[in-house]
């Protein structure tokens, strides 16, 4: 039996809870040829998992009820390819907690202990989050100049005051990884599945792969991952765990006609697959 503790890291609304809900529905489904399937419900507290799955099955936005509480999620699964029992322990940590680490420069001893036990990380990114990178004035001025605007000076400007809240997600995510590197004795590199969520909303012509998306849109984080393969071994996944935009009723109606396990899809470097467990399988492979 293999117990795998996985850290789901990411900022607020980056898709962590939705992924867990979809994953729970997927491993419980009757889909054939799944790599991972439910082994047993015995000895597990699955109320939280069932609650978020219920929302997901109804195509409702999956929400956390308590932003401050870490939900301890445990799935007892079976790997079909080798008949091995796989226990997934995935604490569902709110995105605020990762922001708080950056701001307060401290974490709980529980988080610290978890970091020292993890086998892998799923790093979630919401591609539509405007805070993914900082907007610099010089870039805005370039655009203004092209549109014929005249640059203003800083006289009489009522400046805002700096606070950690204004820091971009890419800087905070680099810090999350640096905190882990600082607190954990890393002998072999930790596998990191980088999940670009809501992939169904990405224009694939502009971003042909999840890795290319990260390189273009969060370059600091991308460079950090490229440079620190002695600590972190990344792989990139574009994930649509919902399968559609929940703000669009027509999309929802279409999605409700589809078998739930057929809704999610994953964009890899060169192909699209329907196996939602792929980022987990990759993490747990020896």
């Amino acid at each position, binding site marked *: 039996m293999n117990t795998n503790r996985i850290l789901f890291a990411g900022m607020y609304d980056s898709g962590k809870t939705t992924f867990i809900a979809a994953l729970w529905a997927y491993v419980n489904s009757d889909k054939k040829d799944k790599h991972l399937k439910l082994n047993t419900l015995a000895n597990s507290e699955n109320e939280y998992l069932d609650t978020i799955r219920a929302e997901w099955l109804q195509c409702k936005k999956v929400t956390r009820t308590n932003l401050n509480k870490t939900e301890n999620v445990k799935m007892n699964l079976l790997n079909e390819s080798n008949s091995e029992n796989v226990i997934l322990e995935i604490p569902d940590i709110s995105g605020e907690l990762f922001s708080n680490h950056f701001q307060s420069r401290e974490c709980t001893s529980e988080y610290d202990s978890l970091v020292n036990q993890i086998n892998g990380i799923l790093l979630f990114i919401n591609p539509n989050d405007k805070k993914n990178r900082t907007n*610099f*004035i*010089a870039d805005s*001025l370039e655009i203004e100049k092209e549109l014929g605007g005249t640059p203003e000076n800083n*006289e009489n400007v009522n400046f805002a005051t700096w606070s*950690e809240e204004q820091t*971009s997600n890419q800087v905070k995510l680099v810090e999350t990884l640096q905190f882990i*590197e*600082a607190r954990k004795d890393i002998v072999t590199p930790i596998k990191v599945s980088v999940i670009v969520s809501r992939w169904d909303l990405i224009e694939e012509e502009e971003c042909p792969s999840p890795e290319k998306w990260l390189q273009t849109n969060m*370059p600091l984080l991308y460079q950090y991952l490229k440079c620190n393969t002695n600590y972190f071994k990344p792989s990139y996944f574009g994930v649509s765990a919902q399968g559609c935009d929940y703000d669009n009723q027509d999309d929802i109606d279409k999605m409700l006609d589809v078998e739930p396990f057929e809704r999610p899809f994953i964009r890899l470097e060169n192909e699209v697959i329907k196996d939602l467990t792929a980022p987990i399988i990759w993490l747990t492979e020896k």
Partner: protein
Amino acid sequence: METQIKKICHQPGCKILEGGSCLESIDVTKDECPHFYVDNENDDVKDDNSNAQTKQSTSVKLFTGRELSFKETSIITDRYDSKLIAIVGESKSGKTTLLAEYYINLQKQPIKEYYFAGSKTQTGFEERCFYATVGSKAKKPDTGRTQSREFSFLHLALKHKDELDKEPTHFLISDIWGERFREAKGSTALMQELTILKSADFVLFIIDGEKIATKATRALTIEEAKTFIQKALDENIFDSNTNLKVAVSKWDFLYSDSSFDFADKIERVFKGRFESRLGKIEFTKLAARSENASLEAGYGLYELLKSWKTENINERISDTPEIKQSSSRAFYKYSLPNA
């Protein structure tokens, strides 16, 4: 009532807080460890505040992310080979802007072949970059004035794109209130307080190009720069180990000015006067934020970085200089750019 004293260790990998031993086998009870100190902010926590105590007892301190004092740089220098870069120049000459622009550029893309491999002072960089961001409400990029009288350092780790599997180069780049240099050029005692410059692998001396572009201040600005270097040499702060690069900043103000000859007025003059007494003297032009449409923003930054990255450094002076500062730790305060 008993006072709870909370201790902090910022040394990565040190298990002292979890009841283990000090990473460097230092006796922390003798106050000898530069990474371990009492957090006075928590001195007033009382015994009867059990909830607060429980919360604090279960929290683990992470590295601060802020600029490092000279002492604190050992969290980098003890663990990695590193290069110490001292940036010298009077107030508003562009020292902090140079630092900020390196970090801003890395947030957008690698600086040509140099990739961002990490920084233990991201919060320090974020503060320094703030007035260049839309969130500050500034209309044009600016930099808050550094007001600390003590040296502190920003950390940046970089890798060459063809050497991603090798160790990064760790840079520790200084930031300090420019007024310290204006004062030091006229005072032996104040110059002697700048002994950290002796530990630098590279010294970048920045001359304000905007002041050179103004004819009324041109001669004065150049003379004052020469006076500082002369004084630093005569007081043995600079010597034959010093690797000095003289930079004229805000080159966009001078780019189209035919009345100023960089080679004659800067290179020839400074080389002729100081070359024989220094380990090395070189020259460069910088325009971190160009306002001249003909000159690209970031002019000279890559070449400067490349020289730091690729140049071999002399053996670091083994004796740690006596640090004369008013407190055991350096703190920064920022003012608004126009203040």
